[in-house]
Protein backbone atom coordinates (compact mmCIF):
# COMPACT_ATOMS: atom_id res chain seq x y z
CA UNK A 1 0.00 0.00 0.00
CA UNK A 2 1.38 3.37 -0.99
CA UNK A 3 2.49 5.95 1.50
CA UNK A 4 0.73 9.17 2.25
CA UNK A 5 3.30 11.93 2.35
CA UNK A 6 2.99 15.18 4.28
CA UNK A 7 5.22 18.16 3.57
CA UNK A 8 4.20 20.59 6.32
CA UNK A 9 6.97 23.15 5.99
CA UNK A 10 7.62 25.65 3.23
CA UNK A 11 10.38 28.24 3.08
CA UNK A 12 7.99 30.95 4.26
CA UNK A 13 6.09 30.22 7.47
CA UNK A 14 3.10 32.34 6.53
CA UNK A 15 2.30 29.69 3.91
CA UNK A 16 2.40 26.80 6.37
CA UNK A 17 -0.84 25.24 7.58
CA UNK A 18 -0.24 25.05 11.36
CA UNK A 19 1.79 22.01 12.44
CA UNK A 20 -0.87 21.03 14.99
CA UNK A 21 -3.40 20.86 12.12
CA UNK A 22 -1.07 18.52 10.25
CA UNK A 23 -0.86 16.42 13.39
CA UNK A 24 -4.65 16.32 13.66
CA UNK A 25 -4.91 15.49 9.96
CA UNK A 26 -2.73 12.44 10.54
CA UNK A 27 -5.13 11.36 13.28
CA UNK A 28 -8.10 11.73 10.90
CA UNK A 29 -6.35 9.80 8.16
CA UNK A 30 -5.24 6.95 10.40
CA UNK A 31 -8.91 6.38 11.18
CA UNK A 32 -9.99 6.49 7.55
CA UNK A 33 -7.32 4.90 5.37
CA UNK A 34 -6.35 1.27 5.09
CA UNK A 35 -4.36 0.02 8.09
CA UNK A 36 -1.38 -0.95 5.98
CA UNK A 37 -0.90 2.60 4.69
CA UNK A 38 1.93 4.51 6.32
CA UNK A 39 2.23 8.26 6.67
CA UNK A 40 5.57 10.02 6.24
CA UNK A 41 6.43 13.59 7.07
CA UNK A 42 9.11 14.92 4.76
CA UNK A 43 11.28 17.99 4.92
CA UNK A 44 14.83 19.09 5.49
CA UNK A 45 17.04 18.12 8.43
CA UNK A 46 16.48 21.57 9.94
CA UNK A 47 12.72 20.94 9.94
CA UNK A 48 13.06 17.68 11.83
CA UNK A 49 12.44 19.09 15.30
CA UNK A 50 9.20 20.70 14.18
CA UNK A 51 8.16 17.49 12.45
CA UNK A 52 8.68 15.62 15.74
CA UNK A 53 5.74 17.56 17.16
CA UNK A 54 3.61 16.50 14.17
CA UNK A 55 4.33 12.77 14.42
CA UNK A 56 4.73 12.39 18.20
CA UNK A 57 1.11 11.62 19.15
CA UNK A 58 0.78 8.90 16.52
CA UNK A 59 1.84 5.25 16.39
CA UNK A 60 5.49 4.99 15.48
CA UNK A 61 4.91 1.96 13.27
CA UNK A 62 2.59 3.89 10.92
CA UNK A 63 3.75 7.49 11.10
CA UNK A 64 7.34 8.44 10.35
CA UNK A 65 9.40 11.57 10.53
CA UNK A 66 11.57 11.38 7.43
CA UNK A 67 12.77 14.98 7.56
CA UNK A 68 16.42 15.04 6.59
CA UNK A 69 16.51 11.31 5.99
CA UNK A 70 15.87 11.24 2.26
CA UNK A 71 18.16 12.45 -0.48
CA UNK A 72 16.49 14.66 -3.06
CA UNK A 73 16.48 11.82 -5.59
CA UNK A 74 14.96 9.44 -3.04
CA UNK A 75 12.32 12.00 -2.12
CA UNK A 76 11.34 12.44 -5.77
CA UNK A 77 10.91 8.68 -6.10
CA UNK A 78 8.84 8.58 -2.92
CA UNK A 79 6.61 11.36 -4.26
CA UNK A 80 6.12 9.60 -7.59
CA UNK A 81 4.98 6.49 -5.80
CA UNK A 82 2.85 8.15 -3.13
CA UNK A 83 -0.82 7.41 -2.58
CA UNK A 84 -1.39 11.08 -1.82
CA UNK A 85 0.79 14.10 -1.06
CA UNK A 86 -0.39 16.89 1.23
CA UNK A 87 1.51 20.15 1.32
CA UNK A 88 1.35 23.92 1.41
CA UNK A 89 1.76 26.44 -1.37
CA UNK A 90 5.30 25.19 -1.83
CA UNK A 91 7.61 23.14 -4.00
CA UNK A 92 6.61 19.63 -2.94
CA UNK A 93 2.95 20.17 -3.88
CA UNK A 94 4.00 21.58 -7.24
CA UNK A 95 6.26 18.59 -7.82
CA UNK A 96 3.78 15.89 -6.86
CA UNK A 97 1.02 17.68 -8.78
CA UNK A 98 3.18 17.65 -11.88
CA UNK A 99 3.66 13.90 -11.49
CA UNK A 100 -0.11 13.38 -11.54
CA UNK A 101 0.04 12.02 -8.01
CA UNK A 102 -3.08 12.81 -5.93
CA UNK A 103 -2.10 16.05 -4.25
CA UNK A 104 -3.91 18.17 -1.70
CA UNK A 105 -2.52 21.68 -1.41
CA UNK A 106 -3.55 23.65 1.66
CA UNK A 107 -3.19 27.08 0.15
CA UNK A 108 -2.74 30.12 2.37
CA UNK A 109 -4.04 33.56 1.63
CA UNK A 110 -0.69 35.29 1.23
CA UNK A 111 -0.78 34.77 -2.51
CA UNK A 112 -3.40 34.50 -5.25
CA UNK A 113 -4.28 30.85 -5.72
CA UNK A 114 -5.23 31.47 -9.36
CA UNK A 115 -1.68 32.61 -9.94
CA UNK A 116 0.38 30.24 -7.81
CA UNK A 117 -1.64 27.04 -7.40
CA UNK A 118 0.10 23.77 -8.22
CA UNK A 119 -0.93 22.34 -11.57
CA UNK A 120 -2.01 18.81 -12.23
CA UNK A 121 -5.25 17.06 -13.00
CA UNK A 122 -5.32 15.36 -9.63
CA UNK A 123 -4.59 18.39 -7.49
CA UNK A 124 -7.17 19.50 -4.96
CA UNK A 125 -6.80 22.97 -3.56
CA UNK A 126 -8.07 23.77 -0.08
CA UNK A 127 -8.16 27.48 0.72
CA UNK A 128 -10.10 29.97 2.75
CA UNK A 129 -12.26 32.77 1.33
CA UNK A 130 -11.06 35.67 3.43
CA UNK A 131 -11.02 39.41 2.94
CA UNK A 132 -7.36 40.12 3.70
CA UNK A 133 -6.01 37.89 0.93
CA UNK A 134 -3.63 38.28 -0.81
CA UNK A 135 -1.50 39.99 1.82
CA UNK A 136 1.84 39.20 0.10
CA UNK A 137 3.46 38.83 3.52
CA UNK A 138 6.37 36.46 4.09
CA UNK A 139 6.31 35.78 7.81
CA UNK A 140 3.63 34.58 10.17
CA UNK A 141 4.76 37.20 12.66
CA UNK A 142 3.59 39.88 10.23
CA UNK A 143 0.04 38.53 9.97
CA UNK A 144 -2.42 40.72 11.85
CA UNK A 145 -4.88 37.81 12.02
CA UNK A 146 -2.47 35.05 13.04
CA UNK A 147 -2.73 33.31 9.66
CA UNK A 148 -6.52 33.01 9.86
CA UNK A 149 -6.50 31.98 6.18
CA UNK A 150 -4.81 28.72 7.21
CA UNK A 151 -5.67 28.41 10.89
CA UNK A 152 -9.39 28.24 10.12
CA UNK A 153 -9.04 25.38 7.65
CA UNK A 154 -10.07 22.34 9.65
CA UNK A 155 -8.17 19.06 9.46
CA UNK A 156 -11.38 17.14 8.79
CA UNK A 157 -11.96 19.16 5.59
CA UNK A 158 -8.44 18.41 4.39
CA UNK A 159 -8.92 14.74 5.29
CA UNK A 160 -12.08 14.73 3.12
CA UNK A 161 -10.06 16.23 0.27
CA UNK A 162 -7.35 13.57 0.70
CA UNK A 163 -9.92 10.77 0.56
CA UNK A 164 -11.49 12.40 -2.49
CA UNK A 165 -8.15 12.75 -4.28
CA UNK A 166 -7.26 9.11 -3.65
CA UNK A 167 -10.74 7.94 -4.68
CA UNK A 168 -10.57 9.97 -7.92
CA UNK A 169 -7.24 8.37 -8.73
CA UNK A 170 -8.76 4.93 -8.24
CA UNK A 171 -11.86 5.92 -10.20
CA UNK A 172 -9.76 7.20 -13.08
CA UNK A 173 -7.69 4.04 -13.11
CA UNK A 174 -10.88 1.95 -13.31
CA UNK A 175 -12.24 4.16 -16.08
CA UNK A 176 -9.00 3.91 -18.00
CA UNK A 177 -9.07 0.16 -17.74
CA UNK A 178 -12.69 0.20 -18.88
CA UNK A 179 -11.77 2.58 -21.71
CA UNK A 180 -14.13 5.28 -20.56
CA UNK A 181 -13.23 8.84 -21.43
CA UNK A 182 -12.98 10.99 -18.33
CA UNK A 183 -14.03 14.65 -18.66
CA UNK A 184 -13.82 16.96 -15.70
CA UNK A 185 -14.43 15.85 -12.18
Amino acid at each position, binding site marked *: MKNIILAPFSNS*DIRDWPAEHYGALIGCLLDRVEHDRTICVVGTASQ*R*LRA*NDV*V*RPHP*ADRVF*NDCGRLSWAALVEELKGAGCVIGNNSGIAHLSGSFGVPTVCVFGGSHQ*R*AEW*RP*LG*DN*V*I*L*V*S*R*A*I*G*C*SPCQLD*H*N*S*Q*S*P*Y*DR*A*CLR*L*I*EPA*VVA*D*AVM*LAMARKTDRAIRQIAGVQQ*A*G*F
Partner: protein
Amino acid sequence: MFRAWFAVLRSGGHLIITVPHTFLYERLLSLPSRWNPRQRRLYTPNSLMAEVEEALEANSYRVRLLCDDDNGYDYGVAADHPPSGASDILLILEKIDRPTWRLGPPLAPSKIRSAEPDYAFEPKRTRVESVSQPPHRRILILKLDHLGDFIMSLSALEKARARFPGAHITLIVGSWNVEMARNSSLADEVIAFDIFPRNSTEEEVDVPGKTALFEQLRLGTFDLAIDMRTDTDTRFLLTKVDAKLRAGVGARSQFPFLDIFLPINQTRNEAEAAREDVLRHRDFSWQASADASEFRLKFVSKTIDRASALVWGPYFHLRPGRYEFEPFIEPNRGETGLLTLDVAIDAKPIVQRIISPSDHVGKLAFIVEKPSLSFEFRIWTVGDAAAFSFSFYGGRLIREGGASVLHQSEYQLLLIELVANRLGRFGVLGEMLAR
Protein backbone atom coordinates in the same frame (compact mmCIF):
# COMPACT_ATOMS: atom_id res chain seq x y z
CA MET B 1 7.43 2.49 23.72
CA PHE B 2 9.52 5.39 25.05
CA ARG B 3 6.31 7.27 25.70
CA ALA B 4 4.76 4.37 27.65
CA TRP B 5 7.84 3.95 29.83
CA PHE B 6 8.18 7.65 30.36
CA ALA B 7 4.53 8.05 31.34
CA VAL B 8 4.92 5.92 34.47
CA LEU B 9 7.81 8.01 35.80
CA ARG B 10 7.41 10.65 38.45
CA SER B 11 9.07 14.02 38.09
CA GLY B 12 12.70 13.52 39.11
CA GLY B 13 12.56 9.83 38.17
CA HIS B 14 15.03 8.35 35.73
CA LEU B 15 14.59 6.22 32.66
CA ILE B 16 17.63 4.09 31.92
CA ILE B 17 17.87 2.75 28.39
CA THR B 18 20.47 0.39 26.99
CA VAL B 19 20.44 -0.78 23.39
CA PRO B 20 23.03 -2.71 21.35
CA HIS B 21 25.49 -0.40 19.64
CA THR B 22 25.47 -1.34 15.97
CA PHE B 23 29.15 -0.42 15.60
CA LEU B 24 30.08 -2.79 18.45
CA TYR B 25 27.40 -5.49 18.55
CA GLU B 26 25.99 -6.18 15.08
CA ARG B 27 28.94 -4.52 13.37
CA LEU B 28 26.61 -3.84 10.45
CA LEU B 29 25.26 -0.83 8.61
CA SER B 30 21.91 -2.49 7.83
CA LEU B 31 19.65 -5.23 9.15
CA PRO B 32 19.28 -8.18 9.64
CA SER B 33 21.35 -8.58 12.79
CA ARG B 34 23.88 -11.38 12.76
CA TRP B 35 23.28 -12.34 16.38
CA ASN B 36 19.67 -11.53 17.08
CA PRO B 37 17.09 -12.18 14.32
CA ARG B 38 14.47 -10.25 16.31
CA GLN B 39 16.58 -7.11 16.31
CA ARG B 40 14.44 -4.54 14.43
CA ARG B 41 16.65 -1.50 14.54
CA LEU B 42 20.29 -0.59 14.43
CA TYR B 43 21.29 2.06 16.91
CA THR B 44 23.99 4.64 17.25
CA PRO B 45 23.87 7.35 19.93
CA ASN B 46 22.61 9.70 17.25
CA SER B 47 19.74 7.49 16.04
CA LEU B 48 18.75 6.60 19.61
CA MET B 49 18.51 10.28 20.55
CA ALA B 50 16.54 11.01 17.35
CA GLU B 51 13.93 8.47 18.47
CA VAL B 52 13.81 9.93 21.97
CA GLU B 53 13.35 13.46 20.65
CA GLU B 54 10.62 12.25 18.33
CA ALA B 55 8.80 10.36 21.08
CA LEU B 56 9.04 12.71 24.06
CA GLU B 57 7.98 16.31 24.31
CA ALA B 58 10.75 18.84 24.45
CA ASN B 59 11.52 20.04 28.00
CA SER B 60 9.70 17.11 29.61
CA TYR B 61 13.09 15.48 30.31
CA ARG B 62 16.81 16.15 30.49
CA VAL B 63 19.54 13.88 29.19
CA ARG B 64 21.76 13.05 32.15
CA LEU B 65 24.00 10.51 30.45
CA LEU B 66 24.57 9.28 26.92
CA CYS B 67 27.61 7.12 26.32
CA ASP B 68 29.02 4.05 24.62
CA ASP B 69 29.50 1.15 27.05
CA ASP B 70 32.42 -0.98 25.76
CA ASN B 71 33.52 -2.18 29.17
CA GLY B 72 35.62 -5.30 28.55
CA TYR B 73 34.90 -5.24 24.85
CA ASP B 74 37.39 -7.27 22.83
CA TYR B 75 38.18 -5.33 19.68
CA GLY B 76 40.32 -8.22 18.48
CA VAL B 77 37.35 -10.52 17.85
CA ALA B 78 36.61 -10.87 14.14
CA ALA B 79 33.36 -9.37 12.82
CA ASP B 80 31.90 -12.76 11.94
CA HIS B 81 32.22 -13.91 15.57
CA PRO B 82 29.90 -12.86 18.40
CA PRO B 83 31.33 -9.89 20.28
CA SER B 84 32.63 -10.25 23.81
CA GLY B 85 32.29 -7.64 26.54
CA ALA B 86 29.83 -4.78 26.79
CA SER B 87 28.67 -3.45 23.43
CA ASP B 88 25.83 -1.10 24.31
CA ILE B 89 24.70 2.48 24.30
CA LEU B 90 23.68 3.77 27.70
CA LEU B 91 21.15 6.58 27.96
CA ILE B 92 19.76 8.04 31.19
CA LEU B 93 16.87 10.49 31.05
CA GLU B 94 15.50 12.40 34.01
CA LYS B 95 11.85 13.42 33.91
CA ILE B 96 11.35 17.07 34.82
CA ASP B 97 8.40 19.37 35.42
CA ARG B 98 7.62 21.10 32.20
CA PRO B 99 8.24 24.85 32.28
CA THR B 100 5.25 27.13 31.83
CA TRP B 101 6.66 28.45 28.59
CA ARG B 102 6.53 26.52 25.35
CA LEU B 103 8.88 26.34 22.40
CA GLY B 104 7.44 28.35 19.60
CA PRO B 105 8.21 30.24 16.44
CA PRO B 106 11.17 32.60 16.60
CA LEU B 107 8.95 35.68 16.55
CA ALA B 108 5.55 35.90 18.12
CA PRO B 109 2.96 38.04 16.39
CA SER B 110 3.12 41.42 18.05
CA LYS B 111 -0.55 42.28 17.85
CA ILE B 112 -3.27 39.93 16.72
CA ARG B 113 -6.62 41.38 15.78
CA SER B 114 -9.61 39.39 16.93
CA ALA B 115 -11.51 38.79 13.71
CA GLU B 116 -10.23 38.44 10.20
CA PRO B 117 -12.02 40.56 7.59
CA ASP B 118 -14.91 39.25 5.53
CA TYR B 119 -14.44 38.34 1.94
CA ALA B 120 -16.71 40.92 0.42
CA PHE B 121 -18.18 38.85 -2.39
CA GLU B 122 -18.55 35.49 -0.71
CA PRO B 123 -19.21 34.24 2.81
CA LYS B 124 -16.11 33.28 4.77
CA ARG B 125 -15.61 29.61 4.21
CA THR B 126 -13.11 26.94 3.29
CA ARG B 127 -13.06 26.16 -0.40
CA VAL B 128 -12.12 22.78 -1.81
CA GLU B 129 -11.38 23.16 -5.49
CA SER B 130 -10.11 21.12 -8.35
CA VAL B 131 -9.60 21.61 -12.06
CA SER B 132 -11.67 20.34 -14.92
CA GLN B 133 -11.16 20.43 -18.65
CA PRO B 134 -14.38 21.96 -20.02
CA PRO B 135 -15.55 20.73 -23.42
CA HIS B 136 -14.75 22.98 -26.36
CA ARG B 137 -16.41 21.34 -29.30
CA ARG B 138 -18.15 24.49 -30.58
CA ILE B 139 -16.02 27.62 -30.66
CA LEU B 140 -16.95 31.13 -31.79
CA ILE B 141 -14.18 33.56 -32.70
CA LEU B 142 -14.84 37.27 -33.24
CA LYS B 143 -12.36 39.10 -35.45
CA LEU B 144 -14.35 42.10 -36.47
CA ASP B 145 -11.76 44.69 -37.39
CA HIS B 146 -10.06 45.55 -40.66
CA LEU B 147 -7.98 43.91 -43.35
CA GLY B 148 -4.60 44.42 -41.72
CA ASP B 149 -5.97 43.35 -38.34
CA PHE B 150 -7.24 40.11 -39.88
CA ILE B 151 -3.93 39.39 -41.55
CA MET B 152 -2.16 39.95 -38.23
CA SER B 153 -4.52 37.41 -36.64
CA LEU B 154 -3.82 34.61 -39.13
CA SER B 155 -1.07 32.97 -37.08
CA ALA B 156 -3.33 32.97 -34.02
CA LEU B 157 -6.21 31.49 -36.03
CA GLU B 158 -3.84 28.79 -37.30
CA LYS B 159 -2.88 28.07 -33.72
CA ALA B 160 -6.52 27.86 -32.70
CA ARG B 161 -7.16 25.32 -35.46
CA ALA B 162 -4.14 23.30 -34.35
CA ARG B 163 -4.86 23.47 -30.61
CA PHE B 164 -8.57 22.62 -30.98
CA PRO B 165 -8.36 19.98 -33.71
CA GLY B 166 -11.79 18.43 -33.26
CA ALA B 167 -13.68 21.67 -32.71
CA HIS B 168 -16.22 23.30 -35.00
CA ILE B 169 -15.01 26.90 -35.34
CA THR B 170 -17.33 29.72 -36.34
CA LEU B 171 -15.50 32.89 -37.32
CA ILE B 172 -17.21 36.28 -37.55
CA VAL B 173 -15.34 38.89 -39.58
CA GLY B 174 -16.04 42.17 -41.35
CA SER B 175 -17.54 41.60 -44.77
CA TRP B 176 -14.28 42.81 -46.33
CA ASN B 177 -12.45 39.85 -44.81
CA VAL B 178 -14.96 37.08 -45.58
CA GLU B 179 -13.34 35.83 -48.75
CA MET B 180 -9.89 35.65 -47.23
CA ALA B 181 -11.28 33.93 -44.13
CA ARG B 182 -13.08 31.31 -46.22
CA ASN B 183 -10.01 30.72 -48.39
CA SER B 184 -7.85 30.26 -45.31
CA SER B 185 -9.84 27.17 -44.22
CA LEU B 186 -9.15 28.17 -40.63
CA ALA B 187 -12.82 28.09 -39.71
CA ASP B 188 -15.67 25.70 -40.47
CA GLU B 189 -18.09 28.55 -40.88
CA VAL B 190 -17.45 32.21 -41.70
CA ILE B 191 -20.08 34.85 -40.99
CA ALA B 192 -19.91 38.47 -42.10
CA PHE B 193 -20.75 41.23 -39.67
CA ASP B 194 -19.70 44.87 -40.07
CA ILE B 195 -19.53 46.44 -36.66
CA PHE B 196 -16.95 48.92 -37.94
CA PRO B 197 -17.27 50.88 -41.17
CA ARG B 198 -14.91 49.63 -43.83
CA ASN B 199 -13.32 53.07 -43.96
CA SER B 200 -13.47 54.98 -40.69
CA THR B 201 -12.60 58.28 -42.34
CA GLU B 202 -15.67 58.07 -44.54
CA GLU B 203 -18.18 56.81 -41.98
CA GLU B 204 -18.54 57.31 -38.27
CA VAL B 205 -17.68 54.39 -35.98
CA ASP B 206 -20.67 53.38 -33.83
CA VAL B 207 -19.92 50.01 -32.24
CA PRO B 208 -22.67 50.10 -29.57
CA GLY B 209 -25.17 51.17 -32.23
CA LYS B 210 -24.63 47.85 -34.03
CA THR B 211 -25.43 45.73 -31.02
CA ALA B 212 -29.04 45.02 -31.99
CA LEU B 213 -27.91 43.89 -35.45
CA PHE B 214 -25.33 41.58 -33.87
CA GLU B 215 -27.99 40.00 -31.68
CA GLN B 216 -30.07 39.30 -34.78
CA LEU B 217 -27.35 36.99 -36.10
CA ARG B 218 -28.89 34.10 -34.08
CA LEU B 219 -25.59 32.34 -33.75
CA GLY B 220 -26.68 29.43 -31.57
CA THR B 221 -24.81 28.10 -28.57
CA PHE B 222 -21.09 27.65 -28.06
CA ASP B 223 -18.78 26.04 -25.55
CA LEU B 224 -16.32 28.88 -25.95
CA ALA B 225 -16.40 32.39 -27.45
CA ILE B 226 -13.19 34.35 -28.03
CA ASP B 227 -12.90 38.01 -29.01
CA MET B 228 -9.56 38.32 -30.75
CA ARG B 229 -9.56 42.11 -30.99
CA THR B 230 -6.87 43.67 -28.81
CA ASP B 231 -8.70 46.97 -28.36
CA THR B 232 -11.49 46.64 -25.89
CA ASP B 233 -14.41 48.22 -27.74
CA THR B 234 -15.90 44.94 -29.04
CA ARG B 235 -15.49 42.92 -25.84
CA PHE B 236 -19.06 43.56 -24.68
CA LEU B 237 -20.32 41.60 -27.70
CA LEU B 238 -19.31 38.42 -25.85
CA THR B 239 -22.15 39.10 -23.42
CA LYS B 240 -24.53 38.85 -26.36
CA VAL B 241 -23.31 35.36 -27.24
CA ASP B 242 -24.69 32.18 -25.70
CA ALA B 243 -21.37 30.63 -24.64
CA LYS B 244 -20.32 28.63 -21.59
CA LEU B 245 -16.90 30.30 -21.50
CA ARG B 246 -15.81 33.71 -22.75
CA ALA B 247 -12.23 34.76 -23.45
CA GLY B 248 -10.49 37.95 -24.51
CA VAL B 249 -7.79 40.50 -23.86
CA GLY B 250 -8.29 42.74 -20.85
CA ALA B 251 -8.52 42.91 -17.10
CA ARG B 252 -11.07 40.90 -15.16
CA SER B 253 -12.09 44.06 -13.31
CA GLN B 254 -12.88 45.70 -16.64
CA PHE B 255 -14.67 42.72 -18.15
CA PRO B 256 -16.11 40.66 -15.31
CA PHE B 257 -17.89 38.38 -17.77
CA LEU B 258 -14.58 37.00 -19.09
CA ASP B 259 -13.81 33.50 -17.85
CA ILE B 260 -10.37 33.53 -19.45
CA PHE B 261 -8.66 36.86 -19.83
CA LEU B 262 -5.23 37.96 -20.97
CA PRO B 263 -4.30 41.04 -18.93
CA ILE B 264 -1.89 43.09 -20.98
CA ASN B 265 0.50 45.68 -19.72
CA GLN B 266 -1.25 48.99 -19.19
CA THR B 267 1.81 50.76 -20.55
CA ARG B 268 0.68 49.59 -23.98
CA ASN B 269 -0.97 52.95 -24.56
CA GLU B 270 1.66 55.05 -22.81
CA ALA B 271 3.69 57.52 -24.79
CA GLU B 272 6.27 55.86 -26.97
CA ALA B 273 8.03 59.22 -27.24
CA ALA B 274 10.61 60.45 -24.79
CA ARG B 275 9.79 62.62 -21.79
CA GLU B 276 11.84 65.71 -21.03
CA ASP B 277 13.05 67.48 -17.92
CA VAL B 278 14.74 70.83 -18.49
CA LEU B 279 17.38 71.45 -15.83
CA ARG B 280 18.48 75.00 -15.11
CA HIS B 281 22.08 75.90 -14.35
CA ARG B 282 21.03 76.49 -10.75
CA ASP B 283 20.12 72.80 -10.42
CA PHE B 284 23.88 72.12 -10.56
CA SER B 285 26.86 73.12 -8.39
CA TRP B 286 29.81 75.07 -9.75
CA GLN B 287 33.29 76.21 -8.79
CA ALA B 288 33.83 79.67 -7.38
CA SER B 289 35.56 80.97 -10.49
CA ALA B 290 32.22 81.05 -12.36
CA ASP B 291 30.25 84.22 -12.83
CA ALA B 292 26.68 83.17 -12.00
CA SER B 293 23.72 85.14 -13.26
CA GLU B 294 20.00 84.38 -13.32
CA PHE B 295 20.37 82.69 -16.71
CA ARG B 296 23.80 81.11 -16.91
CA LEU B 297 27.19 80.30 -15.46
CA LYS B 298 30.02 82.04 -17.29
CA PHE B 299 33.53 80.54 -17.12
CA VAL B 300 36.57 82.45 -18.37
CA SER B 301 39.47 80.23 -19.37
CA LYS B 302 42.11 82.29 -17.55
CA THR B 303 40.35 82.11 -14.17
CA ILE B 304 39.23 78.46 -14.23
CA ASP B 305 40.49 76.41 -11.28
CA ARG B 306 41.91 73.27 -12.92
CA ALA B 307 42.08 71.36 -9.64
CA SER B 308 38.37 70.65 -9.44
CA ALA B 309 35.32 70.06 -11.61
CA LEU B 310 33.83 73.22 -13.09
CA VAL B 311 30.21 72.04 -12.88
CA TRP B 312 28.71 69.05 -11.07
CA GLY B 313 25.35 67.77 -9.88
CA PRO B 314 22.39 67.76 -9.59
CA TYR B 315 22.36 64.23 -8.00
CA PHE B 316 18.81 63.46 -9.06
CA HIS B 317 17.62 59.92 -8.42
CA LEU B 318 16.49 58.42 -11.67
CA ARG B 319 14.17 55.53 -12.42
CA PRO B 320 15.61 52.71 -14.53
CA GLY B 321 15.45 53.48 -18.22
CA ARG B 322 17.23 54.84 -21.26
CA TYR B 323 18.29 58.45 -20.94
CA GLU B 324 20.01 61.22 -22.84
CA PHE B 325 21.41 64.39 -21.34
CA GLU B 326 21.87 67.36 -23.65
CA PRO B 327 23.95 70.06 -21.93
CA PHE B 328 23.30 73.63 -23.00
CA ILE B 329 26.85 74.93 -23.48
CA GLU B 330 27.81 77.99 -25.47
CA PRO B 331 31.60 78.04 -26.12
CA ASN B 332 33.61 81.12 -26.96
CA ARG B 333 34.41 80.10 -30.51
CA GLY B 334 37.24 82.61 -30.71
CA GLU B 335 39.36 80.50 -28.36
CA THR B 336 41.02 77.12 -28.58
CA GLY B 337 41.17 74.46 -25.88
CA LEU B 338 39.42 71.37 -24.59
CA LEU B 339 36.85 70.41 -21.94
CA THR B 340 35.61 67.02 -20.73
CA LEU B 341 31.89 66.38 -20.25
CA ASP B 342 30.75 63.28 -18.47
CA VAL B 343 27.71 61.65 -16.91
CA ALA B 344 28.24 59.71 -13.67
CA ILE B 345 25.76 57.34 -12.10
CA ASP B 346 26.32 56.89 -8.38
CA ALA B 347 29.62 58.77 -8.83
CA LYS B 348 30.83 56.30 -11.47
CA PRO B 349 31.43 57.93 -14.90
CA ILE B 350 29.58 55.98 -17.59
CA VAL B 351 29.79 58.25 -20.63
CA GLN B 352 32.41 60.86 -21.43
CA ARG B 353 33.06 63.30 -24.27
CA ILE B 354 35.94 65.73 -24.92
CA ILE B 355 34.92 68.86 -26.83
CA SER B 356 36.62 71.83 -28.42
CA PRO B 357 34.92 75.20 -28.99
CA SER B 358 34.02 74.29 -32.56
CA ASP B 359 32.33 70.96 -31.67
CA HIS B 360 28.61 70.38 -31.57
CA VAL B 361 28.08 69.26 -28.00
CA GLY B 362 25.12 66.96 -28.74
CA LYS B 363 23.64 64.44 -26.28
CA LEU B 364 25.22 62.06 -23.82
CA ALA B 365 23.28 58.77 -23.89
CA PHE B 366 23.22 56.41 -20.92
CA ILE B 367 21.20 53.65 -19.31
CA VAL B 368 20.11 53.50 -15.67
CA GLU B 369 19.78 49.83 -14.82
CA LYS B 370 18.64 49.96 -11.20
CA PRO B 371 16.22 52.19 -9.29
CA SER B 372 17.30 55.10 -7.12
CA LEU B 373 20.67 55.74 -8.67
CA SER B 374 22.08 59.24 -8.50
CA PHE B 375 22.55 61.13 -11.78
CA GLU B 376 25.39 63.61 -12.12
CA PHE B 377 26.65 65.70 -15.05
CA ARG B 378 30.13 67.15 -14.78
CA ILE B 379 32.44 69.48 -16.72
CA TRP B 380 36.21 69.16 -16.27
CA THR B 381 39.37 70.48 -17.79
CA VAL B 382 41.46 68.00 -19.83
CA GLY B 383 44.87 67.08 -18.42
CA ASP B 384 47.42 69.79 -19.27
CA ALA B 385 45.40 71.08 -22.24
CA ALA B 386 44.13 74.62 -22.17
CA ALA B 387 40.45 75.13 -21.39
CA PHE B 388 38.22 77.54 -23.25
CA SER B 389 35.70 80.10 -22.03
CA PHE B 390 32.05 79.10 -22.14
CA SER B 391 28.60 79.69 -20.71
CA PHE B 392 26.53 76.90 -19.17
CA TYR B 393 22.73 77.23 -19.12
CA GLY B 394 21.75 73.80 -17.72
CA GLY B 395 20.53 71.03 -19.97
CA ARG B 396 17.77 68.76 -21.06
CA LEU B 397 17.32 65.30 -19.53
CA ILE B 398 15.38 62.98 -21.81
CA ARG B 399 13.87 59.66 -20.76
CA GLU B 400 12.61 57.16 -23.28
CA GLY B 401 8.86 56.50 -23.07
CA GLY B 402 7.60 53.61 -20.95
CA ALA B 403 5.43 51.81 -23.48
CA SER B 404 6.05 48.06 -23.47
CA VAL B 405 4.23 46.75 -26.48
CA LEU B 406 4.05 43.44 -28.24
CA HIS B 407 3.03 42.99 -31.84
CA GLN B 408 -0.68 42.55 -32.43
CA SER B 409 0.00 39.03 -33.70
CA GLU B 410 1.78 38.21 -30.45
CA TYR B 411 -1.09 39.39 -28.26
CA GLN B 412 -3.47 37.15 -30.18
CA LEU B 413 -1.12 34.17 -30.19
CA LEU B 414 -0.74 34.55 -26.43
CA LEU B 415 -4.52 34.70 -26.03
CA ILE B 416 -5.08 31.51 -28.00
CA GLU B 417 -2.24 29.75 -26.22
CA LEU B 418 -3.69 30.83 -22.87
CA VAL B 419 -7.16 29.58 -23.76
CA ALA B 420 -5.80 26.26 -25.06
CA ASN B 421 -3.70 25.73 -21.95
CA ARG B 422 -6.53 26.65 -19.64
CA LEU B 423 -8.98 24.30 -21.32
CA GLY B 424 -6.46 21.51 -21.68
CA ARG B 425 -3.38 21.15 -19.58
CA PHE B 426 -3.99 23.58 -16.72
CA GLY B 427 -7.76 23.25 -16.46
CA VAL B 428 -10.37 25.58 -15.07
CA LEU B 429 -10.53 25.79 -11.30
CA GLY B 430 -13.92 24.99 -9.86
CA GLU B 431 -15.32 24.32 -6.42
CA MET B 432 -15.98 20.75 -5.26
CA LEU B 433 -16.90 21.25 -1.62
CA ALA B 434 -17.46 24.27 0.59
CA ARG B 435 -17.46 24.36 4.38
